């Protein structure tokens, strides 16, 4: 059986992947900081709950729009700069931008635009849809990277861990919300989980962003190690590097 040779994730430069990771971290940090600042203001009674909602929504819609387009461009660049299963992974990853674009808009789209019933849990349903739109493509992205034979070993292990990170940060808050409002309201144990959940939500973009950033760094390191070892000749012959 022919053993596939390992290749870096990106050809020429890892800059698109680094930028994608950084953009995701930046977006995650910005939403976490602004969200925390606004909720602090509201919880101290400095602004009303109505003002909190409208200011947060305005921010989420603007930031989501900018971040969504930025992610789309960077995912496409990553797909262009890669090949094989990695290209397929980033192509699917592009779909994750839809989840970001929908942030702050999902309720209107689902319940007013599409006329779906809210079932008395409109924000939970809309939140779950937004999260799924982001998390599922990201999960598939990491599954493909983890199972790619040409992907450097370190990248595959990190991708494997990232699957759990994406799924955990995406589904744990939804799971806790369902427990808290439907299955076990009033349960002190769920109360503790809600505390954790409010922190996990803030990591929803930061951790996958960090994963992408580390993937880029590991892959970059791999490519610089490969070149002096002489294996680059083979790759250069295929016209895939530099």
């Amino acid at each position: 059986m022919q053993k596939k040779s390992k290749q870096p994730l990106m050809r020429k430069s890892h800059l698109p992947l680094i930028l994608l990771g950084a953009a995701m971290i930046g977006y995650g940090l910005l939403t976490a900081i602004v969200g925390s600042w606004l909720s602090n203001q509201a919880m101290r009674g400095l602004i009303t709950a109505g003002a909190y909602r409208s200011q947060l929504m305005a921010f989420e819609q603007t930031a989501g729009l900018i971040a969504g387009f930025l992610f789309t461009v960077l995912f496409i660049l990553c797909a262009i700069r890669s090949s094989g299963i990695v290209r397929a992974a980033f192509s699917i990853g592009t779909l994750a931008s839809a989840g970001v674009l929908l942030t702050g808009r999902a309720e209107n789209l689902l319940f007013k635009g599409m006329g779906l019933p809210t079932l008395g849990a409109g924000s939970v349903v809309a939140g779950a849809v937004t999260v799924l739109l982001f998390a599922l493509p990201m999960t598939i992205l990491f599954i493909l990277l983890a199972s790619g034979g040409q992907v450097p070993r370190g990248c595959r292990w990190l991708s494997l861990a990232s699957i759990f990170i994406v799924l955990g940060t995406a589904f744990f808050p939804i799971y806790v919300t369902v427990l808290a409002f439907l299955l076990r309201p009033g349960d002190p144990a769920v109360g503790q989980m809600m505390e954790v959940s409010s922190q996990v939500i803030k990591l929803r973009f930061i951790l996958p962003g960090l994963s992408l950033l580390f993937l880029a760094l590991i892959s970059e390191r791999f490519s610089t190690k490969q070149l002096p070892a002489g294996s680059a000749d083979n790759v250069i012959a295929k016209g895939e590097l530099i």
Partner: protein
Amino acid sequence: MKPSIGKTQWNGLVVLLLVIVLLAASCKPASVSPPVSGPSEDFFAGLNLVVPSQYDPPIQMDSVITVDATVKFLGGNDIHNNVWTRAYEQQLGIKINYKWVVDASMYDQKLSLSVNSGEIPDMFMVSPAQLRLFHEAGLLADLTSVYEAEASAKTRDVLTQDPVSLQAGTIDGKLWGIPLTDAAVASAPMLWIRQDWMDRLGVGAPSSMADVLEISRLFTEQDPNGTGVNDTIGLCVTKSLWGAIANLQGFFNGYHAYPGIWYERDGELVYGSVQPEMRAALLALQEMYAKGQIDREFGVKDINQVSETIAQSKCGMAFGVWWIPYHPLNLSQQNDPYAFWTAYPIPSVDTTPAKSQYRSAIGAFLVVRNGYANPEALIRMVNFWADNILQSQDDDLRRVFLGDIDTPDVVLYKYTPVVVWEPNAIIDGGKKLREAIARKDPSSLDLEAQWRYRIIQAYFEQGTLEAWVEVATNGPNGSTSILEQIQEERGMLDRYFGAPSPAMAEKMPTLQTMEEVMITKIIMGDSIDMFDQFVQDWRRLGGAEIVKEVNLWADGNP
């Protein structure tokens, strides 16, 4: 050649399996608690109960109690043998024996039969009218001295938080009944407005009744629900006019009118519904109705139909008590996930702040039969409740005596008639919760309050819009903070809290019907002169006599 599975495919398979396992695990429900059995003596042994004294040997106390369909029992328990009967016997040395048990709707009738047949329980619950009746018949024990001697500090605190509660149980300077206290101020109306509609239309908080009328106009004319159809009204009103939900007393209060209650004016108690301030409020309501800001069919719509209007996002304002977000305002999220109602203090028609009217919450008293050898036993039972249930922050103790979260239908305190609530509990609880929210530290809260904290946190930190109900009531600037203002300076307490006087008992029902008909007709377009006619008729048909009796009572209850 036999196809072989490559390492890559194996890896992929393993990854997929792990993902599936993770997904399956995330769908698994939380750990299920073991079934709860009835509390046994062991529970008392491990609890930090406050019990200063115990009868030895135990005494017998015959009593009576109501049990309705909502009262559920854990296995092996019934109304004669439950956590409360066992606690009274083992902790206080009081063997309680319920001579009869009836549905609450049959209680007064059954009690009258028992008393008339001479079978008077040792300790039982009475209405204000029965308190006076049984006292006059000499059937009740004087509790003045036993209260002074036995009442614990917490019991005294609870029974004096509402300044009229002990007074209500006092006749001729002596205490004959222990009032079953609750939060009087909880019945005070406030103004509830769809905040999301106000934000959408760029409207600020109302600072006067003129603002209220303008918001009502905008809600009716500017399509705040975004359906593109003229299907909204400004103000929800039920056909009953008064009550906790979609009432009108809040609107009248904005005009300094206080229908249905007695308050002091020029040194004497007057009946609010016949005062001149009613006029301006009635005219304003009439105009709102004429402009379609009040449902054209409000005169036939009960609370269920009004709730339906709220659920359909067709109504943007309602006067109601502090808890109405729990129901029916919560229904508005069925059609609009952004629905959010905010409470405001009643705005005023002029520069004098408006006051929300409310009544004493004392609807019943616990009394002891005249001749019963241990009247102080009742005070000890009240102490047991106050010192352990109200005073304690011990969640284990509360679980044993009130109920467990795993069996929410089993409300244990319904097994005893000796239940007094702290009148200030809602206000104090809301205050503590808001302080904890501002500090972002729930550690000082009891379990129930901690849960409310988490729900509010879910709204502000996780975007769970369905949590707005808790935000609107106990959150920053929530309705319980308005209750605090009402209790301090913006409330108008009904000054008459005695049993119905003879003329009141006989004539008030008819006069109240006249009043409701008059108000409904004027709102729907009849001449305002009808109000003047009503005032004259009210005095002539018994009102003047009632005023005399009420003021006579007030002289004895300053």
